[in-house]
């Protein structure tokens, strides 16, 4: 990044308006550029000075009360000026909503039930696929990467224990299938 571009981004950087890649790029430039670093320091000092919360005026309690009173007032008026029909309509509304909500719930639970039963639980290929995918996620989540450099099965097999749900033998099989297909 050139100085000219960096200077234009310094403020956006302090304002937290750069995306991560831009911020990283700017930081790298600032690390190696004394001028930009000085400019950033000056801007940050000004920012800190302005962010002194004692510069912020808090709303006086009287104003807060005044608005709360006005709000209570308009709410009361709005309630009392509603015609009787409108008030009845408001009380009817919840019953109607209950029916609608029941319909939505029935549909949703039906859809979930159908979906759970549509998967073919007896298909062994689907099961292996599912387990393999789950194991892959677990392996990604683990701290160690999925590398074990050994052809000795006494090394390989214990390494797999606890990392995957399949036995090492079936994992080998999957591995062969995977490499063959590539």
């Amino acid at each position, binding site marked *: 990044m050139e100085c000219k571009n960096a200077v234009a981004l310094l*403020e956006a950087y302090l304002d937290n308006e750069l995306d991560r890649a831009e911020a990283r790029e700017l930081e790298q430039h600032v690390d190696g550029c004394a001028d930009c670093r000085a400019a950033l320091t000056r*801007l940050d000092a000004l920012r800190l000075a*302005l962010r002194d919360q004692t510069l912020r005026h808090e709303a*006086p309690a009287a104003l*807060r009360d005044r*608005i709360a009173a*006005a709000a209570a007032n308009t709410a009361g008026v709005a309630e009392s000026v509603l015609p009787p029909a409108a008030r009845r309509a408001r009380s009817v509304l919840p019953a109607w909503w209950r029916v609608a909500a029941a319909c939505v719930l029935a549909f949703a639970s039906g859809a979930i039930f159908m979906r759970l039963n549509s998967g073919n639980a007896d298909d062994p290929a689907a099961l292996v696929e599912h387990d393999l995918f789950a194991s892959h996620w677990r392996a990604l989540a683990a701290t160690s990467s999925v590398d074990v450099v050994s052809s000795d099965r006494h090394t390989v097999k214990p390494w797999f224990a606890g990392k995957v749900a399949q036995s090492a033998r079936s994992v080998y099989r999957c591995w062969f299938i995977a490499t063959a297909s590539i």
Partner: protein
Amino acid sequence: MTGVAANAWVGELVQRHLDAAYNLGRWLLGNDHDAADAVHDAYLRAARAAHTYAGGNARAWWLAIVRNCCLAKLSSRSRERPLDDDAANLPRTAANDVEDCVDAAQSRARIAGHLRALPAEFREALVLRELEDLSYREIADVLGVPIGTVMSRLSRGRALLQRALGTDPVREIIDGM
């Protein structure tokens, strides 16, 4: 939204962001009385216009109304009326009374003075950004200008403040004591 629900919503929104509204009004108008009046007007206007709220950032919507009320007040009040003096323009804090904080109070007074001396368009952008912590997008919504304009106003305002603070000799403060 029904009328009652809209009123409750506006009431809640206004109370939640009342400090932000008052602070903006106070920095735009320069005194407590006008700021409180403008915020109260803004509440009434917001309550009437609640049904026109079309989603989006509610705080920006509310602060935009506050700003409009402040601008209306600014144009209506007489131009001859001077701004209050510096001491009256500083928020009251316990720190003001403590001798240890004299230095801090002085630098605060300097910054407040220079911020107040900025043209309103730079001042409001800086107040919204630094004191209210609004994003560029939110400031753009409040001011009704593009984000690029917000960025250039902030940049311009900061440059002016830096220059003012840089040329402000320390001697002046010591002499002023």
